[in-house]
């Protein structure tokens, strides 16, 4: 099976909504093509439409115009979504939460358990299968949420500021885990963040977005070597990119280039 060159094809997608005082542009037309297996970071200040773009790709919200094509050959659930909060069902154990997408698509319990156990092990939660979400730390809950998003094996994983609620050390850990998971599963990942360091460290390409109105300002290729780790954070090229991203975000939209 050849890799899809156009896993996600976004053409002129924009979003406006009606507010009390008129129409508000949440997202000006965006066009980008994303390859299968690519890791894309989307970075920008609040109100830049980065979460909106993710919600449009997932189908949670409808675009006001333009088109989004996913090369997923008629799958019922083409995307897994990791929200800012874990959104685990508090009355279900970790394994029941991870298995939930499978339970609701008619997969047998036995097969679902097997998949869920593998994923729980992969995200580093082995031994916590029977725990309730409230017994876990914020970082552990988010790991469980990632396992759930992967459980019915969607080709695309959308992550909306998934680590913004955890402390910095946990965040570094989770970033490395995420890279490992990405490398072993070959998913196409779009991760929204407001951290330029996180965006540069993880991605193949970084989409920089600016606010009022929300628009895609530019896209950077990240040429840092894989696999990435502690050395990456010492690489001058990494720091140069982080600095560039900061400059991009500081310049008011429309003035650059």
């Amino acid at each position: 099976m050849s890799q899809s060159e156009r896993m996600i094809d976004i053409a002129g997608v924009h979003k406006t909504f009606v507010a009390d005082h008129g129409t508000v542009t949440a997202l000006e037309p965006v066009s980008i093509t994303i390859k299968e297996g690519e890791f894309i970071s989307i970075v920008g200040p609040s109100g830049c439409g980065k979460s909106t773009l993710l919600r449009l790709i997932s189908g949670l919200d409808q675009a006001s115009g333009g088109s989004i094509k996913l090369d997923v050959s008629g799958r019922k659930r083409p995307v897994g979504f990791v929200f800012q909060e874990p959104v685990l069902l508090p009355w279900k154990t970790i394994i029941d939460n991870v298995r939930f997408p499978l339970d609701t698509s008619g997969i047998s319990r036995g097969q679902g358990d097997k998949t869920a156990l593998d994923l729980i092990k992969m995200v580093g939660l082995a031994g916590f299968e029977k725990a309730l979400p409230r017994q876990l730390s914020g970082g552990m809950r988010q790991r469980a949420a990632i396992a759930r998003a992967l459980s019915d094996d969607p080709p695309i994983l959308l992550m909306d500021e998934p680590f913004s609620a955890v402390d910095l050390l946990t965040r570094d850990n989770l970033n490395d885990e995420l890279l490992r998971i990405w490398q072993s599963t070959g998913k196409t990942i779009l991760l929204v963040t407001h951290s330029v360091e996180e965006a540069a460290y993880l991605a193949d390409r970084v989409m920089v977005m600016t606010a009022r109105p929300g628009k895609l300002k530019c896209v950077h290729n990240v040429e840092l070597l894989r696999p990435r780790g502690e050395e990456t954070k010492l690489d001058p090229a990494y720091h140069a990119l982080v600095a560039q991203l900061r400059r991009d975000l500081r310049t008011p939209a429309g003035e650059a280039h």
Partner: protein
Amino acid sequence: MILRGIAGLIATLVLWTAIVFIFQVPSYLLPGPMEVLNRLVFLFENAKLLRHIGVTLTEIVAGFVLGTVIGILAGVVFARLPRVERFATPLILLLQTAPKIAIAPLLLLWLGIGPTPKIVLIAIVTFFPVMSGMVTGLRYGEGSFRDLAAVLKLSPWQSFWHIELPSALPAVLAGMAVATTLAMTAAVIGELMGANEGIGYLLSSGQENSDTAVVIGMVLLLSMIGWAFYEIIELIRRRSLGRFQLS
């Protein structure tokens, strides 16, 4: 906690006995605890007290279950279809604001003197807090759960069964706990208005015969049943709370 409660009860009984003894209160005004107990034993042996208790308990359980089920179903409909809620709200409020003691004779006229009008009255008073709890629980359910259901493309039934109902459960159980005391009152009102069996019936015959010991006995019996009823629902509520809330 329990020990202090028991100590308090014993102290009350001692005080009660002392008042009756010291002031020589005539028993048609205030019989002592032993006399009340003796009368209860007499009713137990000669007037099928257990059967009367059974009748009242059956009415309460049947009415409570009926009101809870209808309350949950109505809550689902109202939360999903605000138009239906707006249409039904005046009627429901009218039913709720009408004093239950005024509705009871109407139900007796329509449904006779048996257990049915009591069950209906209990269901009416149970319905409202349960329905409110369900509507609140469903309506203010977290938006993020809705996103989860949308991403997983859950059917309306899956989303209801796996997400909405469990989310609403704490609010529904809080409504049920409130409903227990209302249900007790409704049962007694129904039986006082007209019955030939039940604790309320014994209560009103005690009144007619100026048998104060019977009246006090029945009041104590009702208190104990109501208390136990509330504690059972509260226990279920507290047990489930840990499981159904995140922190």
